């Protein structure tokens, strides 16, 4: 990694922190407020690619662990990892990596707009939602003891909000690719 990569990782981690400072949006048809922070996970993969995207998210989690209140709502410290939803945070790292991996393989700068949109959407949904849930739900289920099915099912209330975020990540990912491409592309 050269110095520019390290700076890009740090700047993107800072963007993810800033996304957590913005007030959460409440949409009428979804029972939970949407915070922009997990959108940052998808964006990290879509814009920086697998390695640098995952590193940016890992850097945010490092800041949380050493006791900086950088998660949305001013949360931070080791207690966040000890809680029932800690698995989602761990899943963020792998989510950003998978999201970046898919975006690197599918997106080409010379592609028509529509296939770029679809590639970014696939990357955000698979990496930013499926992979994150893959880590978050078993952790939540384990922490819940015997009522694991009910709590895992209840966590699905976040799904509509996450789908909206995947859509925003798709649009923003494609816009950044057009304005300032950084995504390492490979066959």
């Amino acid at each position, binding site marked *: 990694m050269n110095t520019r990569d390290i700076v890009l990782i740090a700047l993107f981690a800072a*963007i993810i922190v800033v996304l957590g400072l913005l007030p959460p949006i409440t949409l009428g048809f979804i029972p939970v407020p949407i915070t922009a922070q997990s959108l940052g996970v998808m964006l990290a993969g879509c814009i920086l690619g697998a390695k640098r995207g995952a590193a940016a998210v890992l850097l945010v989690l490092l800041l949380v662990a050493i006791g*900086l209140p950088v998660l949305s709502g001013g949360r931070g410290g080791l207690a966040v990892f*000890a809680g029932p939803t800690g698995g989602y945070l761990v899943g963020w790292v792998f989510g950003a990596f998978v999201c970046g991996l898919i975006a690197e393989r599918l997106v080409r700068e010379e592609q028509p707009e529509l296939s770029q949109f679809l590639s970014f959407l696939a990357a955000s949904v698979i990496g930013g939602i499926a992979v994150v849930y893959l880590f978050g739900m078993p952790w939540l289920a384990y922490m819940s003891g015997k009522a694991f099915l009910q*709590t895992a099912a209840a966590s699905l209330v976040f799904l509509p909000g996450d789908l909206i975020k995947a859509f925003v990540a798709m649009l923003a990912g494609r816009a950044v690719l057009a304005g300032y491409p950084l995504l390492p592309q490979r066959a």
Partner: protein
Amino acid sequence: MLNGLDIEGNSPLHRLPVRGKLILLFVAAIVLFLLSDLRLLAPALALSAALYLSTGIGVAEAMRRTRFVLFTVLLVAAANYFFQSPHEGAVVFCRLSTLVLLAAAVTATTGISAFMDEITRLLTPLERFGFVRAADVSLAVGLVIRFVPEIFARYGEIVAAHKARGLPVRPLTTLTPLIILTLKDADTIAMAIDARGFRRH
């Protein structure tokens, strides 16, 4: 803007080395998940609450910091209460809140720089295999703390620009310029770091 969650003080927990606290927290997590006897878990919860408050943090501040995580714990415990048994709900509540309070106590008694030093020490063995350079991690942490206020101010400017032009403030139209403007600085910052010779090869 980015202040740590550690509380100044000289309690026994403050004087414990960082690595010792982390190992104790890890052991406590394993033991808590092996226990399912309320006669042991309920005193453990009282003890961890006492430990957290012994760090010198006020009750109001302690509540403010842990309320979100404790709320999720309460939801999980409620699910057990309704779908399993009241006993199961109490066990899950005691176990998870004990763990959360212990973790919060470690955070409250560990300064950011002390924690960062420990992380650097833990990363040194990885350095030998060429995975990551400990000095780069500290550099990145420093960069984030330095740039968060600046990026937040830039977001404010973009919102103001939207309002000045009579445009609605939408996530998409603010996010894209924020990201592009921020990442475009990377080259200049990287050059400034290299010019100062922070990363010798």
